[in-house]
């Protein structure tokens, strides 16, 4: 298969890559760029573990054709905090024990980040809706929702 040249920004760094025509953005992130924070659960759009931001919107990276990421700005969980400093969402997840095995956490964080970009002051209903496509098999969700609520409060203060 003939490879396709793409240029994209991931976590504020520019990359020029050659990708396969049927490659997914998820594979580019994990295999080409070794950003393994983004997880593959189902591989078919159902579980949300692979959620990242493209131009500020949450997408399932297993449903994004890598060549279509050309020219786009991608943010993964590795780009959420700044250096050693965790993002308020990450702090709140720790405080509320919003994970057990942690496999869904990168997806939860990125879906929550997209929510707070659009709705800085979400209701519980908003949070439930925006996170509805990310499945967690451990926590029972309540801690996650509490964490997002608190992070929104914290971010209003800054």
């Amino acid at each position: 298969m003939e490879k396709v040249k793409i240029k994209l920004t991931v976590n504020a760094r520019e990359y020029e890559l050659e990708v396969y025509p049927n490659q997914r953005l998820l594979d580019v992130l994990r295999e080409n760029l070794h950003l393994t924070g983004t997880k593959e659960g189902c591989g078919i759009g159902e579980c949300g573990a692979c959620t990242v931001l493209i131009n500020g919107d949450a997408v399932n990276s297993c449903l994004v054709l890598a060549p279509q990421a050309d020219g786009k700005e991608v943010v993964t969980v590795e780009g959420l905090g700044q250096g050693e400093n965790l993002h308020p969402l990450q702090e709140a997840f720790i405080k509320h024990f919003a994970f057990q095995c942690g496999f869904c956490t990168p997806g939860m964080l990125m879906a929550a980040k997209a929510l707070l970009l659009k709705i800085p002051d979400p209701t519980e209903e908003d949070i439930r809706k925006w996170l509805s496509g990310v499945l967690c098999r451990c926590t029972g969700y309540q801690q996650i929702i509490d964490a997002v609520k608190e992070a929104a409060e914290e971010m209003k203060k800054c």
Partner: protein
Amino acid sequence: MINCEYLKPVDLQEALKFASQFADRARFAAGCTNILPDIHTGKLRDCVLIDISDLKELTGINREDDFISLGSATTVAELLNSEIIRNEAPVLWEAASRFADPVVRNRATVGGNLAYGSPASDMSVPLLVLDATVLVQSMEKGIREIPLRNFFVGPGKTVLSPSEVILRIKFEPLSDFKFYYTKFGKRNAMAISIASLAVGIKLGKAIEEARIALGALAPIPLRALRTEEFLTGKPVQTEILEKASEILLSEINPISDIRGSKEYRLELTRALFLRAVNNILSLK
């Protein structure tokens, strides 16, 4: 062996040229929310992906005289963010708000949803009840206008030829109708419809006109034309609605699958239909 190629046409003309050149291997790639799972599960192995996601001819939600015109590459999220859709086509807006989850909606397009031809296609039901027309184009056949009600042929099959692209979808908003949309799935988010239904009624002293569209209840999404005809000119009475629901059940042909049995879907349809009509009447 997987054998895929990717082409990015500069404009619509080039996209049509590529599609004609690669004929049966050509696949227009919009949001790829159907295409990538099909590649991943081995259903699609040999294809030339023609990227139409950035073609300006296929984008935008516009008012054109009496019509609303949607580019086929409009995402479900864009429908939800559109004031035109929210205010003038609330039945389509409602269906968009029940589609998958907010993350999938950022990629899934209206054109892809129709072209994939799933019997459970959630964009088809509100668009059928609005009596939408699909504008398509290819090198071989030029531009064609196809009523959506004649568009679906069978599960995964439409009247589109492999090199034909959906350009736009057009409909009149029908401000003198009242609409109701309902989607019934196993959970609120991310559920494939067990049944979905949209009803539109123009009410005067009696029912002046009725439109009913159904999803996941037959091999294709469809309009219940015989039930519509029966209801036209009839007063709103319990017996009339009971009779209408009998006709409605004779017009569908649901299957039994992991989401529900045939018998369950029939009962569900009756309940959803009566609920829809009662909701519309209570809007008055």
